[in-house]
């Protein structure tokens, strides 16, 4: 167990290092820099800025400096916003993104798993068709189209929900549906196919041959087995939802992390790009790790090694 954990953590650090390196290289490979702009800036000013942010150092030195900061969990100052650090951006943005993400995650789980179960148990009947129709819409229509449609109907026409912002709990409803729509549909489909597969297994026939009720066959024998593939994709899904969606945050004017991230890319705000990428990657890796630990709780066949 301890050996496994050490190995896993070492792998996580290597992965993060590679992600940081790759992002750093790609970022510098793109022409232009944080201080390139339409306005004519005198060379003296530019030199001074480059000097201040140490952009004149060779790239390997810049990278090592950055890693040094990373070890101390210091993601560095923003190149574009005076007096702000990347840590500030995350501290400001993450609570909004995470709160919306948590609400959406609960919504996704409460909607998708029951949908998948009903669909599988009523395979081929109208309930199945209805759920699969909804799931197809959710997978195929992009979130910003759903968001726009939801705002038009529920905010503009019916006036039930606010058009933007998360000042009251009502503000969470539409972004939650728009952002979670895809995951709900995807997980409902996965749950359906997984449960259908399990229901055809020999051990389900064995359970039925014992004379136990069909409800017990499903709840006790089928569901846990059917949940295994669902748990697998849950890690990335959780990371995705909690770190926010730029598009949804933009549409509903939610000051989450996504906005900072996209702005940083267009503005070549080097430290912010790196910081956000590394933060997102770390979050994702941690979630996948937690899911792997969860696996062992569900499936006795999986051991730590």
């Amino acid at each position, binding site marked *: 167990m301890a050996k496994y954990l050490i190995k896993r953590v070492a792998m996580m650090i290597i992965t993060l290092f590679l992600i940081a390196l790759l992002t750093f290289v790609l970022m510098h490979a793109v022409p232009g820099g944080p201080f390139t702009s339409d306005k004519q800036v005198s060379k003296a000013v530019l030199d001074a800025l480059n000097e201040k942010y140490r952009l004149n150092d060779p790239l390997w030195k810049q990278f090592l400096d950055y890693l040094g900061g990373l070890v101390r969990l210091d993601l560095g100052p923003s190149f574009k916003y005076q007096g702000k650090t990347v840590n500030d951006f995350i501290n400001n943005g993450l609570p909004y993104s995470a709160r919306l993400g948590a609400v959406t995650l609960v919504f996704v789980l409460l909607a998708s798993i029951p949908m998948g179960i009903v669909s599988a148990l009523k395979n081929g009947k109208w309930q199945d068709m209805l759920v699969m129709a909804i799931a197809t819409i959710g997978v195929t229509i992009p979130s910003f189209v759903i968001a726009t449609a939801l705002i038009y109907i529920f905010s503009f026409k019916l006036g039930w929900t606010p058009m933007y912002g998360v000042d009251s709990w009502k503000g969470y409803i539409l972004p939650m549906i728009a952002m979670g729509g895809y995951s709900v549909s995807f997980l409902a489909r996965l749950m359906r196919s997984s449960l259908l597969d399990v229901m055809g297994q020999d051990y389900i026939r064995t359970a039925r041959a014992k*004379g136990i009720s069909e409800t017990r066959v499903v709840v006790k*024998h089928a569901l846990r087995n059917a949940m295994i593939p669902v748990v697998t994709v849950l890690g990335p899904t959780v990371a995705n939802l909690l770190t926010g969606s730029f598009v949804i945050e933009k549409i509903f004017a939610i000051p989450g992390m996504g906005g900072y991230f996209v702005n940083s890319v267009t503005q070549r705000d080097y430290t912010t790009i790196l910081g956000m990428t590394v933060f997102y990657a770390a979050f994702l890796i941690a979630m996948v790790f937690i899911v792997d630990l969860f696996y062992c709780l569900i499936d006795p066949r999986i051991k730590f090694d």
Partner: protein
Amino acid sequence: MEPILQVRDLRTSFMTSNGEVHAVRGVSFDVEKGKTLGIVGESGSGKSVTSLSILKLLGTTGRVTAGSIKLDGEELTGKSRKEMRAIRGARIAMIFQDPMTSLNPLIPMGEQVGEMLWEHNRKMGKAERERKVLELFRMVRIPEPEKRLKSYPHEFSGGMRQRVMIAMALACKPELLIADEPTTALDVSIQDQILKLMRSLQREMGMSIMFITHDLGVVAELCDRVAVMYGGLLMEEADIVDIFKKPMHPYTMGLMASIPDMNQDRRVQLQPIPGSPPDMIHPPRGCPFAPRCPYAMRVCMEEIPPYAVTGANRRSMCWLLDPEAPAAGNPFKQGREAAV
């Protein structure tokens, strides 16, 4: 004595997107109390479907379309789901072919066996149930049973899993045990152990067994009586000694010729039966075995033969046994003439 299981003209079909699959097309047999009936046939002969029909475990697409199934004189075909549940496990238990996939991978073995006891005797306390499971584990000779109760299926070998399946099936002391190819997925040495175990448990508990297999060797070891199935029909039924002494159906003869024999001259090749089983969506009009039968006559292709009594307590479904069948090249008539 009344048989424990009496099946009459059983017909079972599966509704598929390609059409109705006539898996069982009118099968009748008895399982005598305390005895073992072997049902022999190749894949697709309808032998497994026959057993699943008895317990109504046919899934959503399968359906018994006609016939009668009586357990100790009690008709089962009209039973509701709830009534069937009280019979499954308690009065008729079943063990399946593949012990690797027939046990739930996520539930400890002891709990899976205990569930059977729990379902059919809710009054039994937890402690007593655990004691009973331990007793069952000992009964099927699982070494160190105390340690094994909390183990999961993947921690067991195939033979051990099949022992657990047997323990589970026998937990409620059923009157009839249906064993659907219980040894097929096991190594030969383990097969032998499992067969011996089943035989000794049958003697102890006095239950009846319906043993489904494609392996005539297994039948010889365990069964009192054999029913040979092909193409959804019961081709021949006889006592074990009689059928091995003299098979009275070309299909049975074919099956016997394809058993390897240790003492056989190596130059004599094993005789496989040529061809493959019939398409059961459009079953042949006549005898299903006719296209593969070396003795097939014109009538065999056109009409299903009636049963002919071929001796004491035995019958076969073959046109060669018809009184009007030609004697020339007829394996059964020559035999009889020689006997006379």
